[in-house]
């Protein structure tokens, strides 16, 4: 048994209601800050039931464990899509003091900078309805997805190093994209301080054939239409209108990111012991941000972040090419609306006790949701705030929200990333047969094309929380406000 690992909090975790949509886990034992959860009665009851039932992996315990990490500011937070993860809960947000704080693999996840890209098109729902089946087949054929799939681009080691530094720009240089794309990607598709030298050869070799692949699990590429507009002004600024066709894709940094996580899990385990940091859950192994190990890992995360940017850029362009070909429209009629990551480590300035302070913000299954006026938000959207892309399930709906000042003040400018699961994959497989699900969804007008039947059962809409419920918590608490709801017509799964 390693010295750093001291086991979960032993006392009884309690949850206190602060306001209608905000709940708190009061400080106890060595928690440095309280836990804060955004949720409604149902969402919170599910978490409390899990804890009472003694479920080993429950989000409340995970939030309390995160609250014990050195240098954490204000509160260990979970957004309303909260569910158990590993180390951090999903929907988890932790902001750390740069001098006293730590960085942890669990706060970023293995799929570094997993995120969502949404493209706007000049197509209408009726246009897609006419060719839905053949369009779905074309997308399925042109978008590499599923275990063992390989992309069109084969990279050498030197080219991988370039990807890790240049991010989405690299893909555009290779012909995958149009210049305007970069303006609407978080960080313009490239983060600094990414030294390819801190990424192992194994991580790079695993990525040679994986740029431009979707992966599997909850990753998808969807053809969606705007079903409802909640805020006309914001929608106008975002260039969205009812009935418009959007293309959304959800994926991350592929094998390179996974291997960085794996490599540094071991390294940060050693660091936790070296710096004698007490760890409540083994997966929370971490290193001081300012230590050599911490700096190396942060640089590696930045490499993974750039890899994910490059990957989504290729996929977005493949989808653009296919859509343009099928419908005979110009590629420039398919613009990037926005792209945002949800497994991230970012240096950001936030107000702490009235003082502007640089913090390391870890978001694990939570997106950045910056409010109006922030310079990080594209100029075109700055007046209203950053678009927040919330991926729903393959059978229901997704949402587009916008960030707010309230979110800046309360959650370090963070919001939900999806609906959030409420049932295990095992249970989902026992409950739904893929064949039945596909038939049901087809009746609703949604075509699913997937590489794995069991994958489809695991991702059944019923295995997730109601997206509307989860979004309403964000909206009603003022953290991020509703702009539009979109519904799927075609979903390509790994």
């Amino acid at each position, binding site marked *: 048994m390693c010295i750093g690992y001291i086991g979960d909090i032993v006392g009884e975790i309690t949850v206190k209601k602060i306001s209608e949509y905000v709940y708190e886990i009061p400080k106890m034992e060595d928690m440095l800050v309280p836990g804060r959860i955004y949720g409604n009665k149902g969402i919170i009851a599910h978490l409390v039931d899990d804890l009472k039932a003694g479920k080993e992996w429950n989000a409340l315990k995970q939030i309390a464990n995160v609250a014990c990490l050195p240098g954490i500011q204000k509160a260990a937070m979970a957004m309303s899509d909260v569910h158990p993860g*590993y180390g951090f809960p999903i929907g988890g947000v932790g902001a750390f003091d740069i001098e006293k704080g730590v960085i942890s693999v669990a706060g970023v996840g293995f799929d570094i900078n997993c995120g969502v890209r949404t493209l706007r098109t000049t197509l209408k729902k009726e246009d897609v309805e006419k060719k839905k089946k053949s369009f779905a087949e074309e997308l399925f054929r042109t978008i590499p997805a599923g275990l063992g799939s390989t992309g069109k681009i084969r990279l050498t080691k030197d080219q991988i190093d370039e990807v890790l530094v240049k991010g989405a720009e690299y893909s555009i240089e290779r012909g995958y994209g149009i210049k305007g794309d970069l303006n609407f990607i978080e960080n313009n598709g490239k983060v600094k301080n990414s030294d390819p030298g801190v990424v192992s050869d194994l991580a790079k070799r695993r990525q040679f054939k994986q740029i431009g692949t979707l992966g599997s699990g909850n990753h998808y590429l969807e053809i969606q239409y705007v079903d409802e507009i909640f805020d006309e002004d914001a929608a106008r600024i975002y260039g969205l209108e009812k009935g418009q066709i959007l293309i959304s894709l959800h994926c991350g940094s592929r094998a390179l990111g996974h291997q960085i996580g794996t490599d540094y899990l071991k390294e940060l385990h050693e660091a936790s012991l070296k710096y004698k940091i007490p760890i409540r859950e083994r997966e929370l192994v971490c290193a001081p941000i300012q230590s050599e190990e911490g700096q190396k890992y942060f640089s590696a995360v930045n490499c993974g972040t750039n890899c994910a940017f490059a990957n989504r850029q290729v996929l977005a362009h493949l989808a653009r090419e296919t859509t343009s070909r099928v419908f005979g429209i110009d590629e420039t009629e398919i613009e990037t609306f926005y792209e945002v990551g949800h497994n991230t480590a970012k240096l950001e300035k936030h107000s702490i006790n009235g003082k502007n302070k640089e913090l390391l913000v870890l978001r694990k299954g939570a997106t950045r949701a910056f409010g109006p006026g922030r310079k990080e938000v594209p100029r075109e959207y700055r007046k209203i705030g950053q678009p927040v892309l919330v991926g729903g399930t393959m059978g229901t709906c997704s949402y587009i929200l916008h960030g707010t000042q309230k979110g800046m003040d309360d959650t370090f400018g963070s919001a939900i990333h999806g609906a959030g699961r409420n049932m295990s*994959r095992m249970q989902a497989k026992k409950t739904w047969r893929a064949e039945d699900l596909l038939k049901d969804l087809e009746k609703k007008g949604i075509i699913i094309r997937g590489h794995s039947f069991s994958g489809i059962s695991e991702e059944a809409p019923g295995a997730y929380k109601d997206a509307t419920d989860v979004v309403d918590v964000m909206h009603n608490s003022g953290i991020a406000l509703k702009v539009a709801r979109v519904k799927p017509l075609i979903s390509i799964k790994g």
Partner: protein
Amino acid sequence: MYRYLEHEADIGIEGIGISLEEAFTEGAKAMFNVMCEINTVKSKVPVKLFCSARDIETLFVEFLNELLGKAGIENMLFSKFEITIMNSRGHLELLGKAYGEKLDQNKHGIKTEVKAATYSGLRVKKRDTKYYVRCVLDI
């Protein structure tokens, strides 16, 4: 023998055996059976394995991640494992081979990708005559 443990987002695996080596290899089978129908994978081609760790718990995660790395690089799936665990100057080392074949989308009943084996829920226990090793896989 292996079994799966309920986790709301990912999946827990547990390998059970009369030796640590057997429990480890059962855990590996559990992992590959998350990725594909493991009984469709022929144990034709051997691939060498090596990993080390400071304790038996983290050695299990290292072992699973070594397999994921090899599977990724070689584009293979594995179904049979032969390993030895040794003490080497204060560290534990695992040496051995994994046997499998090239991944075939049409043949192997492909299920889902495993991103990594995590330290979450990591435990190695001996109860009566059997060893139980477990952890959560990131899906």
